């Protein structure tokens, strides 16, 4: 019987399937961090249980860590306590921890792929909704709550109903200045912040296939922003080339065996999806969000849709969002001054993102009215950036290169955007208060963020790219 990629991986991990019950799904890899794990460890203690498969569990500290002076004790007491708890819990339950100071430390969704832990055909979970990132390798990867973290600790399994499947094809060639972030913001704007709920999404089509692994991670990362449990892309030569030689990737005979299996991981030609959407890459412009959910995005030259044009039941929420952002119906964002630029998060903090920004800002300088933070996704990314001299370019441009962590994506640490200020951010959520109380977030690609940093206002990066060439 023909199967979708999701079905192939899912079926290979079902321990038990019984009518009227969710499947018992085996989990290959469990990633954990300091924020959503302490209550799960407590649960184990109360039940007197060990972690069933500690070797299939990997921990890092990312959500709550400072991004300056990481080798000094964490100043904020509650953050320090939470990070210390992770260290103690990992020691007690025998889990490998890449904590502060470790050369592998970083955002959980950045380190999994770069260490070769994330592999095609795996099932992976983490107490974090952006676990969908790992789907870029052709894995079933999804975010879970803390009760489920405890379940996986205790049993290496989850009770899960098989998801519906959706295929999103993006075909054709991307325009100049348009990248993976624009593709995914475009898709979300088309189908809304709830349009993918209940589905696992497989991204396909020539525009997706032409993307690098890091760009594919940006796409899969934001699957959750349309409500989908996960998103994935069938592995191909780009995937295999990326994995080969990484720290924990299979090697030698193991590699050959793994590769042979990975090559069977694609949706069969006549496999049935529950939903199918197709987009044209040429229709996608550099994107920016104007509201308080990631579905409220538009091409950067467009005008904010009018409240009157919204469905009756959505008008109140829509108006509330525009009021929060301080934006008017039918206005353009081009030329709007910005206060902060944040380049980082599990969406866009990898070396390619930093290279793209560095290449763009070389010999340029940030505008005086803007604070620019670049927060690399991991110690390895940070080190690589320094090896390539990107740090010098950022310094000359007035951009501050900080240390790895989730940082201003969610403002759990000190990296907060002040009330009322505008931040062009390469992160994944523009919710009210996400980057700090009453902070206003505009989601965009690293290039669009870099353009705003240089001009001090919302700018169509394509015009600046033409300047360079002219």
């Amino acid at each position, binding site marked *: 019987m023909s199967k979708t990629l999701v079905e192939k991986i899912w079926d290979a991990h079902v321990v038990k399937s019984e009518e009227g019950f*969710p499947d018992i799904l085996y989990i290959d890899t469990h990633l954990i961090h300091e924020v*959503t794990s302490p209550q799960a460890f407590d649960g184990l203690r109360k039940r007197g249980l060990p972690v069933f498969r500690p070797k299939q569990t990997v921990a890092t500290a990312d959500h709550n860590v400072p991004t300056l002076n990481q080798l000094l004790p964490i100043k904020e007491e509650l953050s320090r306590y939470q990070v210390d708890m992770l260290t103690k819990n990992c020691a007690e339950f025998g889990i490998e921890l890449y904590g502060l100071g470790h050369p592998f430390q970083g955002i959980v969704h950045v380190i999994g792929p770069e260490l070769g832990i994330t592999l095609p055909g795996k099932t992976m979970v983490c107490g*974090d909704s952006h676990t969908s990132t790992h789907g870029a390798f052709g894995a079933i990867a999804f975010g879970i709550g803390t*009760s489920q973290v405890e379940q996986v600790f205790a049993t290496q399994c989850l009770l899960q109903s098989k998801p519906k499947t959706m295929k999103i094809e993006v075909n054709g060639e991307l325009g100049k200045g348009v990248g993976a972030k624009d593709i995914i913001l475009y898709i979300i704007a088309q189908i809304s912040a709830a349009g993918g709920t209940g589905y696992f999404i497989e991204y396909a089509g020539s525009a997706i296939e032409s993307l690098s692994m890091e760009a594919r991670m940006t796409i899969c990362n934001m699957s959750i922003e349309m*409500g989908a449990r996960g998103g994935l892309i069938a592995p191909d030569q780009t995937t295999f080339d990326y994995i080969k030689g990484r720290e924990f990737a299979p090697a030698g005979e193991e590699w050959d065996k793994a590769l042979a299996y990975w090559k069977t991981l694609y949706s069969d030609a006549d496999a049935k999806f529950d939903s199918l959407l197709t987009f044209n890459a040429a229709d996608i412009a550099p994107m920016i969000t104007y509201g308080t959910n990631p579905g409220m995005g538009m091409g950067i030259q467009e005008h904010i849709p009018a409240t009157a044009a919204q469905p009756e039941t959505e008008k*109140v929420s829509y108006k509330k969002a525009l009021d929060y952002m301080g934006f008017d119906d039918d206005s353009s964002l081009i030329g709007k001054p910005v206060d902060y630029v944040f380049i980082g998060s599990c969406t866009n903090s990898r070396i390619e993102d930093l290279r793209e920004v560095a290449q763009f800002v070389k010999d340029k300088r940030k505008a005086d009215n803007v604070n620019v933070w670049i927060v690399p996704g991991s110690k390895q990314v940070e080190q690589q950036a320094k090896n390539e001299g990107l740090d010098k370019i950022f310094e000359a441009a007035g951009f501050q290169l900080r240390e790895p962590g989730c940082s201003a994506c969610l403002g759990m640490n000190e990296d907060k955007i002040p009330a009322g200020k505008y931040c062009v951010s390469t992160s994944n959520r523009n919710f*009210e208060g996400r980057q700090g*109380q*009453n902070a206003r977030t505009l989601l965009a690609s690293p290039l669009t963020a870099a353009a705003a940093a240089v001009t001090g206002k919302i700018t169509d990066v394509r015009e600046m790219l033409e300047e360079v060439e002219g």
Partner: protein
Amino acid sequence: MKKFTKLTSAVVPLNIENIDTDQIIPARFLKATTREGFGENLFRDWRYNGDNAPKPEFVMNNPTYGGKVLVAGKNFGCGSSREHAAWAIQDAGFDAVISSFFADIFKGNALNNGLLPIQVSDDFLAQIFQAVDSNPKSALEVDLENQTVTIVETGEKESFDINPYKKSCLINGYDDIDFILNQKQLIEEFEQAR
């Protein structure tokens, strides 16, 4: 886990769509390492000003409204997977949340804690909001066994769906770990067979 069978209560109406878990419990309150005490920060930034003074216009600060059922616009609980959102709602005294659409992870988290997420039609949701608009004390009756929710005043009733396994968990107060631990031998056999 807390058991749930039947409930009749007035409601707290929150007629806003796409309420994300950052609104339900902002990230800065996630530093706690226990499950308790999140209720006081439920909807923190909608409920209080920067100086911690209650915002009188927010429904939870209006003594006219109260009850064990939270009623909200569609796509409730989207965004972050933080289970703290379900803990906060429960800690603030709610036993059920009604919306016309729930985000997947929130729904799962709620069920895993004995907080019942009830998905109703857009029409029925509008009827609930209408009933509460005309009488803030308007009560709902939630019957998990029969999977129905009724607007007591008007007698309007709607059925809701719930996974039969999850339903029995809620009624009996047991959770997924209890269930899977019973299957441990199967899990080990599965591992060996790979």
